């Protein structure tokens, strides 16, 4: 492809990328109480990477983020299924979640929830799937 001059985007994204990714992680973790969750968080992270793809090219992005997104999808599915099946070990039906408040050093009292682990699976699958599709179609030229 012909080289285009998008110096503004290239400069801006170096800063913006971190904000988008950080925000997407925030949105993911906030999900249980405030708007957000794994699906939106994952899509937003994927959006950040897509922005990177548009600014640079696929080869450069692969160098910056050498991630095999198909494996990422697999790990995500493992998280989701693992969390769901984990409940079987406690003699409760599949996909029963547990939660509680835990006293952690430094952070103080935090409420933890196994649903977050499940959601992490969703997050990873969404990132993996979106990027697999975009990457394979993008490479096919």
């Amino acid at each position: 492809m012909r080289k285009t001059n998008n110096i503004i985007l290239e400069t801006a994204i170096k800063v913006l990328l971190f904000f988008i990714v950080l925000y997407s992680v925030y949105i993911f973790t906030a999900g249980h109480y405030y708007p957000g969750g794994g699906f939106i968080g994952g899509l937003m992270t994927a959006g950040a990477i897509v922005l990177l793809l548009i600014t640079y090219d696929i080869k450069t992005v692969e160098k910056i983020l050498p991630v095999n997104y198909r494996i990422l999808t697999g790990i995500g599915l493992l998280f989701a299924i693992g969390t769901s099946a984990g409940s079987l070990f406690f003699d409760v039906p599949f996909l029963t979640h547990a939660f509680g408040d835990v006293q952690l050093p430094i952070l103080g009292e935090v409420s933890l929830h196994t649903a977050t682990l499940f959601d992490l699976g969703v997050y990873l699958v969404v990132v993996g799937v979106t990027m697999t599709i975009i990457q394979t179609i993008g490479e096919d030229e």
Partner: protein
Amino acid sequence: MSSLHLAILAPLIVSIFIPLFYKIFRRIHTGWFVLPLPILLFVYFLSILPITMSGKSLIKIINWIPSLGINFTVKVDGLGLLFSLLITGIGALVVLYSIYYLAKNKEKLNHFYVYLLLFMGAMLGVVLSDNLIVMYAFWELTSFSSFLLIGYWYERDKSRYGAQKSMLITVFGGLAMLGGFILLYIMTGTFSFTELMSQANDIFNHALFVPALLCILLGAFTKSAQFPFYIWLPDAMEAPTPVSAYLHSATMVKAGIYLVARFTPVFGEHYLWFWLVTGVGILTMIWGSVFAVKQTDLKAILAFSTVSQLGLIMSLLGAGAAAHHYKFLDENIFTVAVTAAIFHLINHATFKGSLFMVAGIVDHETGTRDIRKLGGLIHFMPITFTISIIGAFSMAGLPPFNGFLSKEMFFTAMVHVTEMDIFNLETWGILFPVFAWIASIFTFVYSMILVFKTFTGKYQPEKLEKIPHEASIGLLISPAILVSLVIIFGFFPNLLSDSLISPAMASILPSLLGAGEEFKVHISFWHGINIELFMTLGVIILGVFLYQTLSRWKPIYKSIPEKLALNRFYDFLIEGVQSGSYTFTKSYMNGSIRSYLVYVFAFFIFILATTLIGKNAITFDTSNVSSIGVYEVILAIFVVLGSICILFAKSRMTSIILLGAVGYTVSLFYVLFRAPDLALTQLVIETISVALFLVCFYHLPKLRKFETRMSFKLTNALISIGVGAVVTLIALSAHSSKLFDSISQYYVENTYKEAAGKNMVNVILVDFRGFDTLFEITVLAIASLGIFGMIKLRLNRRKEG
């Protein structure tokens, strides 16, 4: 989770770690890591033996989907334990054998042992599950693992052919069985086997009884390779020999036998059950034994012999089920059939397992399994010869081995059939002992072929790929253990009668037992001079005669026309289905996404519009409508304007951007309606899909001439308007008709109480409707892999030219 559940799942859990063992410890044969598991499980199941011996059973429940009556209920009774011991015991020996059979640096051991463990766990699940649906799941898993193991050397055409064949036939039967289970559920309202048994009388008088019986028998017959479904078993011999010994003779093919035994208390009293199980069984037995003589490959002989022996056990179970008609325990001469079935089941596992292993050894040490090339190996492989002669004599039914005992009992049972005064057996019953006797003669003949054509006769070194020598000690241990069992069970058959046979009989014929009673089983060598003895003598005399004159009459097989073979029929069917579906699919799949969208949306309009009109569901009710504000009107105008502009856009780039604009505007609607989650999702989705469009942009065809044709535009316009109209109608009607209270109140109340979350949307996604999410992400993952596969495949092909 109880230790019983863990025992079933242990093989599946260990299988996850096999690739790790294989990668990290390359120098140690992976089999050594697998071996302890079946041994441990065997010991564990032995420890349960006293419970089943006292007539009790062990039940442990894990609630899985209690609302649908599907629970992971494990029940160990006599029958289940017998099979579990077989699975783990033979499993341990097979793993040991495979360590020496499969070279560690040539074979894909990580695949092999994962499949093998998958099978072991699945098979334990089949025989120990009390819930029919759970059992069905495990049942199909055994079919899958068998498919993978047959196709283990997948670079060979025949392996793939055999794997596909076994898969198609056994899964077809499995689905029929599932149908039978569902029919049983309709009749009784339960999937639990224990509860089913207590309602056996109601089932018997139900209209769906016969369909359920036929469906379940279809499952059993396909799995246990009964006529005419047996054709997959000879082709399954493409699997490595340890697999043939394990799955395709000792365990998996006996799942059908297990199923028949399990369902005998429910279906056994019906005449169809007797005629089908006994009739098909005896037909399979004679068919298998006659065609085993024709084979020239050692494993093919063994495959047909397995088919025949499975038929034998099947026919015994059918004859034993008739004992239900004679409701007394003492002097009930018909229960001997069930005793014989179980005894022969055990015996078959021992002698056939050892014979398969011997066939593997011969193949391993000489490079061929063709009896036309083999001969005179007795001088090179004396130990192997000893093992095989004991195994083969036991199979032929010669004393003093265990096969003799069960064969005698088989004759007894078949002779008793003629004494039954039910089901018109007075007239046709005589056929059963006659068929049994003829089949046994052929069994004798192929048993002799197996041993003497391989080990005696002329040694032909020029036809062998390797110089034969005795197998290594590791290869010999497992068959030697099995053969010693053949001898031990031959001399001391009553070791088994109280420990395994009697409890298993109690599971098959529970209605004959009163409280605290048990079956008295005593097996003895000498029954006096009776008809069975003469039958055995006749088998030996005629068998020897036929073996001696084999070369004279074997050419008769050539006169059987190839065209009539069942395999031809199968191939014809498969090809027909393939070419038929190809032509059909080709007729409407023209490769253009536009046409597919037309199909999809036309169908969409058709089905929804007819439902709406047919159900009289179109209603308008404006009583519960909020007022429309200025913002909504502005946004709506934007959406409409944007959509109209797309229609007149001259380039694709413009339409993509306009489409994005419409999408973003819709997300603003969500903001107005205070649905931040939806708004966020819509925004991000819109961004990603515009990006995707831009990526695809490169590949889209140019806007072409014919698109300006009137007819093309007219169809598209009609369909678009149709979709719009239908969706609008549904939305309005859905709002206007409230058939029941909204579920939202439930979520409002329970989101924090039950799930400790404050964001209702997300809690629904991950908790209340977590199953949906789980399936959705799985579908997403599969879709992405599909896209990856399709595009990469095309890329690779292009590179290769």
